[in-house]
């Protein structure tokens, strides 16, 4: 079956611009996660959705970052007034349920964001 997909695969933007990154989870997965991976680092948690609601957004670095999942499937990560420090690979993952670590998180290929 299809895995987690993310679009675009690469995004280059200018400092101060607004960007949207999209994630399509595995069909039937109710939990969706966003992580950010900077160069030379491991992925860092940003936000987790259970269904349509953000169950944990403690990893969002500031109020320029926002994510939605209006119908409980596709999610969009939105970054306003981008800064050069936002350059990273943004990873999306999904799992059958968000209840407990027993549910394996399946990762997408990521979106490489470059802010010039």
């Amino acid at each position: 079956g299809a895995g987690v997909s993310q679009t675009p695969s690469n995004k280059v933007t200018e400092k101060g611009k607004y960007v949207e990154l999209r994630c399509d989870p595995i069909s039937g997965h109710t939990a969706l996660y966003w992580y950010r991976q900077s160069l030379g680092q491991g992925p860092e948690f940003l936000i987790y959705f259970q269904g349509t609601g953000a169950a944990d957004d403690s990893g969002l670095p500031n109020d320029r970052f926002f994510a939605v999942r209006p119908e409980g499937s596709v999610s969009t990560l939105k970054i306003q007034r981008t800064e050069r420090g936002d350059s990273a690979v943004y990873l999306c993952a999904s799992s059958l349920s968000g209840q407990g670590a027993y549910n394996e998180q399946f990762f997408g290929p990521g979106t490489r964001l470059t802010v010039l």
Partner: protein
Amino acid sequence: AQSVSQHNHHVILSEAASLELGCNYSYGGTVNLFWYVQYPGQHLQLLLKYFSGDPLVKGIKGFEAEFIKSKFSFNLRKPSVQWSDTAEYFCAFILTGGGNKLTFGTGTQLKVEL
């Protein structure tokens, strides 16, 4: 703050050599532990996981890891590596009862030479 340390950032081995990658976590409570692998050009994928029970867990492709609670460690091992094991390896944990967010280490880049 909770964290994961992977002390080996780059490892180069010859085929058939034995592998051990170190992982230490910083948290006083109960955690669930994971190793993820990212092969060149591919997605992150789960290699193995530990929740409870036997502290020696076996994963895919002949990998295993041992949880040593007293040392806060979860080292990854493989008796004989292959060229195809060239990849980046990430140790991670989830706090028990702390939601489902993974905390990752910085990763170890493994290169296996023929």
